[in-house]
C-alpha cells in the first residue's frame, strides 16, 4: 500500500517534514517559510553541556519548536502520540497508513541504516514521513535525502525507540484540523518579531550576545585548553554551523530566502534589501568556517595564538552586523 505523497528534499528535517506534510494537505508552504514562521533562526551557547566532548552551540531553535510555533501561528492542529509499547506504536502507524494518512515520525539517527555512516551519531530529534508499507517494508520520505527510501519494520522500530537525550518514544504526528483559509501575514509578522526578540535577548548565551561570548571563549581556548582541544572545539562550531540541515551559513541563507519570499508575498520591499543583507551575513559565517578550518586542518599541537584572535574578531564583526540587522528588522514589524 502506497499513499500518493510528494517527496521534496529540504535542508533541514523539521522544516522539510512540515513543508511536505502541508503540501500533501493542500497548503503549499516552502521550507524557508516554515523556518521563518516557526522562528527557527537563533544562536545559542549552552554552558556546562558538552556535545561530542565539546561546547554545545546551536544555530537554530530547540528541536520541535519550529514545528510547534508554525502550527500555532498558522492555525493547524497536530495530533502527537508517544508510545511505551513498540507493538502498539507499529499498529497505530499501520492503521494510519491504511487510512491513507501519511505520518511524521521522530527518530534517532544512530541506527538509521540508509544514512551515511559518518553522520550516524546519537542524535534523537530527526524527523521523517512514512507514506506506505509493502510487506514488511515501510516507504520513507526523509526530507534530507535526495530520494525516497525504505526501512524494514525492525529497523523502523529501532530508530523510533532510540534511547538517550530527546528519546523519541515512538513519537508520531499528523495534522487533524486545518484552517479553512490560510492567512500567512500575521504568522510571518509573529515569526519575525519572535526571532528579533531572541537574537537581541539581554542574555549572554543567546543571540547576538551569545556570539560575543563564543568570540571571547575562542580567544581564550589556545591558552586555557591547549592547542589540541582548542582545534577540536573549533571544528565542533563549524560542524554545528554547516553540517546537514543548515542550508549553509548556520541557517542564515534559509532565513534570507524566507525574507525574500515574505517580501514578495506581503509587498514589503524593504525586506528584499534585508534579505540581501542577511545573505552577506551568511557569507561572513562561511568565511569564518573557512578560516577556522585552516586552523584545525592540522591536528598537531602547533600553537597558533594569533589565528584565534583573528577568528574571535571575525565573530565579533558578525555579532555587530547581526545586532544592527535585527534592530532594523524589528522596526519593520513594529
Amino acid at each position: 500500500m502506497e499513499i500518493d505523497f510528494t517527496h521534496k528534499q529540504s535542508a533541514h528535517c523539521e522544516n522539510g517534514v512540515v513543508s511536505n506534510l502541508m503540501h500533501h494537505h493542500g497548503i503549499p508552504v516552502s521550507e524557508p517559510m516554515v523556518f521563518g514562521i516557526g522562528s527557527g533562526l537563533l544562536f545559542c551557547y549552552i554552558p556546562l553541556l558538552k556535545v561530542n566532548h565539546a561546547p554545545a552551540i546551536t544555530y537554530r531553535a530547540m528541536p520541535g519548536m519550529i514545528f510547534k510555533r508554525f502550527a500555532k501561528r498558522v492555525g493547524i492542529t497536530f495530533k502527537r502520540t508517544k508510545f511505551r509499547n513498540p507493538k502498539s506504536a507499529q499498529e497505530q502507524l499501520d492503521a494510519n497508513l491504511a487510512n491513507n494518512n501519511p505520518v511524521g515520525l521522530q527518530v534517532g539517527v544512530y541506527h538509521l541504516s540508509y544514512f551515511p555512516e559518518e553522520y550516524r551519531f546519537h542524535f534523537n530529534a530527526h524527523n521523517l514521513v512514512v507514506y506506505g508499507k509493502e510487506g514488511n517494508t515501510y516507504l520513507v520520505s526523509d526530507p534530507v535525502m535526495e530520494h525516497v527510501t525504505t526501512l524494514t519494520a525492525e529497523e523502523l522500530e529501532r530508530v523510533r525507540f532510540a534511547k538517550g537525550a530527546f528519546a523519541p518514544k515512538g513519537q508520531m504526528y499528523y495534522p487533524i484540523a486545518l484552517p479553512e483559509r490560510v492567512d500567512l501575514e500575521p504568522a510571518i509578522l509573529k515569526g519575525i518579531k519572535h526571532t528579533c526578540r531572541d537574537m537581541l535577548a539581554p542574555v549572554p548565551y543567546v543571540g547576538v550576545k551569545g556570539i560575543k561570548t563564543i568570540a571571547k571563549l575562542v580567544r581564550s581556548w589556545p591558552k586555557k585548553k591547549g592547542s589540541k582541544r582548542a582545534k577540536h572545539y573549533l571544528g565542533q562550531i563549524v560542524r554545528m554551523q554547516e553540517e546537514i540541515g543548515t542550508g549553509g551559513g548556520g541557517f542564515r541563507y534559509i532565513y534570507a530566502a524566507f525574507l525574500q519570499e515574505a517580501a514578495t508575498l506581503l509587498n514589503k520591499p524593504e525586506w528584499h534589501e534585508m534579505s540581501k543583507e542577511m545573505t552577506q551575513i551568511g557569507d561572513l559565517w562561511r568565511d569564518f568556517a573557512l578560516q577556522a578550518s585552516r586552523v584545525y586542518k592540522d591536528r598537531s599541537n602547533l600553537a597558533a595564538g594569533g589565528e584565534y584572535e583573528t577568528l574571535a574578531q571575525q565573530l565579533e564583526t558578525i555579532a555587530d552586523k547581526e545586532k544592527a540587522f535585527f534592530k532594523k528588522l524589528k522596526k519593520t514589524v513594529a
Partner: protein
Amino acid sequence: MKKDEVPQDKSSLESSNYKELTYAVNEEGEYTTELSSGWEPKTIALNNALEEIEERIAAAKEAVQAGEMSPIYYYMEKNKMDFSILASYVGIWKWRVKRHCKPNVFKKLSEKTLQKYAEVFQITIAELKKTD
C-alpha cells in the same frame, strides 16, 4: 552565497552518494536551492571528529587489554556512546553501568545482565566477554 559558488568538493560522503541541499542566490538575485557534494572545511571537521572517536576507541581497547576496564567500556566507545546513553539503552542506572565497567564486577555479572548489553551492542555474549 551565489548559486555557482555552492561548493562541490570531494568528501567522504561520495561513496554513499549523498548530496545535501543548500540555499543560494541565482544571477537575478533570487533564492534557489542547489545540491552540494561537500565542502572542504566541513569534511575536515567531520574527519577530525571521527579520528577523535577512533582514538577514544583505541584507548578503550588498551584499557581493556591492560585489565583496567571491562569490555563493556570498549563497546560503549565503539558505539559512540557515553555512560548516560548506554545506561538508557540497557535500562540500568548509570552508576551501575559504571561499576560494570570494572573488570572484577564484570566477571560476576549474570547471563541476564550480559544479554542486555549484548543486545544493545548487537553482538553475542561470547563476543562481549572476549578481551582481545
